[in-house]
């Protein structure tokens, strides 16, 4: 379905179930050059197990119109506006990569309106190599290949988002091309990477959290290695937050290369 947010039509995948404001709500936020479909094997399950799902396409991405967020803070503001527009008082936020930074910043700003925070494949700072940032603008196809190579941890993923027979690497490339093509005004690849690279508010945001947080990290992740999230984990623990850890046996494609482990981690955490 589409929800009007700040004058833009925002696409929200609801997992095949009608939106029901009476149920608890979980918002899934994708990363750079992705869209809602990367959460297929987590969002549809949650929607059919008592949750109200809003798996969004960020503004300016794929099915959503509007201006693509240029910073993590803009993304966080959008999440607040989305909840208001949807009439959702309280929600859990689940974010992947860039989406994890947006989810964390939004949770810090929205405080008690956020019930749970799940950070999948996160890091802080989320520095992106200058070569990759440049390539995302000058040679997006090459940069997409680099990202997909760095994100992959296996040549034999289990039955994944498109079902058995899915070649996750090819699906990642095809999705990247489609998301890039979906916005003819802005290179959302480059914009997303710059937003990740320039975000400085991670530890401050973590200190502001009022909800429990789950770090779901890929043990073989080359894009956001677990060690790159350790500072955030330490900051959360030092500030007395409720911290949970899930060690996923894959790289940066947590949702498609380890769909079951990712689902179970967030399902169990959200059940608390």
């Amino acid at each position: 379905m589409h929800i009007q947010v700040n004058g833009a039509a925002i696409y929200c995948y609801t997992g095949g179930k009608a939106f029901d404001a009476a149920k608890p709500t979980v918002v899934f936020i994708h990363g750079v050059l992705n869209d809602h479909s990367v959460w297929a094997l987590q969002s549809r399950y949650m929607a059919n197990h008592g949750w109200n799902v809003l798996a969004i396409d960020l503004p300016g991405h794929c099915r959503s119109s509007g201006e693509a967020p240029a910073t993590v803070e803009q993304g966080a503001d959008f999440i607040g506006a989305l909840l208001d527009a949807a009439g959702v008082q309280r929600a859990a936020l689940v974010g992947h990569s860039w989406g994890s930074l947006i989810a964390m910043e939004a949770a810090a700003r929205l405080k008690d309106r956020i019930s749970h925070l799940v950070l999948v494949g996160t890091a802080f700072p989320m520095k992106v190599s200058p070569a990759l940032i440049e390539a995302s603008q000058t040679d997006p196809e090459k940069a997409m290949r680099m990202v997909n190579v760095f994100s992959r941890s296996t040549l034999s993923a289990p039955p994944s988002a498109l079902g058995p027979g899915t070649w996750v690497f090819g699906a990642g490339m095809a999705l990247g091309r489609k998301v890039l093509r979906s916005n003819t005004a802005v290179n959302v690849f480059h914009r997303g990477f710059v937003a990740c690279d320039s975000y400085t508010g991670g530890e401050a945001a973590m200190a502001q959290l009022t909800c429990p947080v789950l770090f779901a990290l890929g043990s073989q992740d080359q894009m956001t290695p677990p060690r790159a999230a350790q500072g955030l984990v330490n900051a959360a623990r030092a500030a007395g937050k409720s911290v949970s850890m899930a060690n996923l046996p894959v790289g940066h494609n947590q949702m498609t290369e380890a769909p079951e482990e990712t689902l179970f981690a967030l399902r169990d955490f959200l059940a608390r």
Partner: protein
Amino acid sequence: MPGYSDPGFDTLALHAGASPDPATGARATPIHLTTSFVFESSDHAASLFNLERGGHVYSRISNPTNAVLEQRVAALEGGVGAIATASGQAALHLAIATLMGAGSHIVASTALYGGSQNLLHYTLSRFGIETTFVKPGDIDGWRAAVRPTTKLFFGETVGNPGLDVLDIPTVSAIAHEAGVPLLVDSTLTSPWLIKPFEHGADLVYHSATKFLSGHGTVVGGIVVDGGSFDWDGPKSAGKFAELTQPYDGFHNMVFTEESTVGAFLLRARREGLRDFGACMSPHTAWLILQGIETLPLRMAQHMRNTEKVVEFLATQPFVSRVGHPMLESHGSHALAQKLLPRGAGSVFSFDLKGNREQGKKFIETLKVFSHLANVGDCRSLVIHPASTTHFRMSDEALAGAGISQGTIRLSIGLEDADDLIDDLKRALKAAEKAGA
């Protein structure tokens, strides 16, 4: 640079989709000969049926051995995923039936395998799907054939048996302008010679019976989705309700919302395999996987031998034409140089100067070449298309496909090239004598 995280073609041919079996440690892919898979719980069962979780339910819909083959071919083609089918014809039917129903229209190349021509011309028209045939090189013809009801463009990478090379970049551009995908039969080339997605195709299928399997042992097919086509884009809007509107037959799922790049595969598996049932046996999938492991080695040898045989035939006075794009005389020579730098395949035809009886003598004299209806075997094969594979076609349609009564089709195998040339030499001599 290819490496562990970014492997090249040869590595993918061995490893894509497969890892040691976690239950037994078996290194080779096991053959999962089971119809069904035990559910962990009622909730697990319901979740699998509703596509909330990934996994296998029933081997008509999916099977772990088949899934390895599907991932592997998708990897070699550069697609997002694949579906293995009972035959190449089943793959073609699955692709078409997923995208359209009665009242729809296809624009197809005239240079098609006879079975595909039959399906489009005779069988599908019985179900209300019409096809307009266009010579593969008639670019204006492709454009002119488009109707409001057109849902698909279809051709072969190299037409069987004349080897007219399909100008995939140009034809796909016309298809996309019309808001429809281009489906390509890449059976005769395999992904070792060309990856049609890189040139603009949207869907690719193979008769895996041929080069992918490579040993003439099993019948199978596979359809691969490139994930590139915008089923609900501005030019295709309203054309593909099968993918863009809720489907009553499967939880009111809107496949394009469920998957941004795999809507076709979702519907093809959840409807096409479920309802038409043309699935592949896991044993067949395993044999095709065995074949693919040596695909790069075999294709290289196929092409080396083909080059030598073509060069030999081109010098023979009793041969009036050799139809291979490696020759400058072939109409697709320049296009083949561009799209198929490794070669345009090892299946090609040539014409004898003699009559029908001399043609018969030629075929019956061959000893190394086997006279049978297949191509892409590791053994060399020969057939007379006009009386076999293409016998239902009219003379006009035959001419359109580049076939005459004297045309002989060869599929060059992996034997010693000298032995193949010797065999052909003796048969040519015998055929020539038969006309004396």
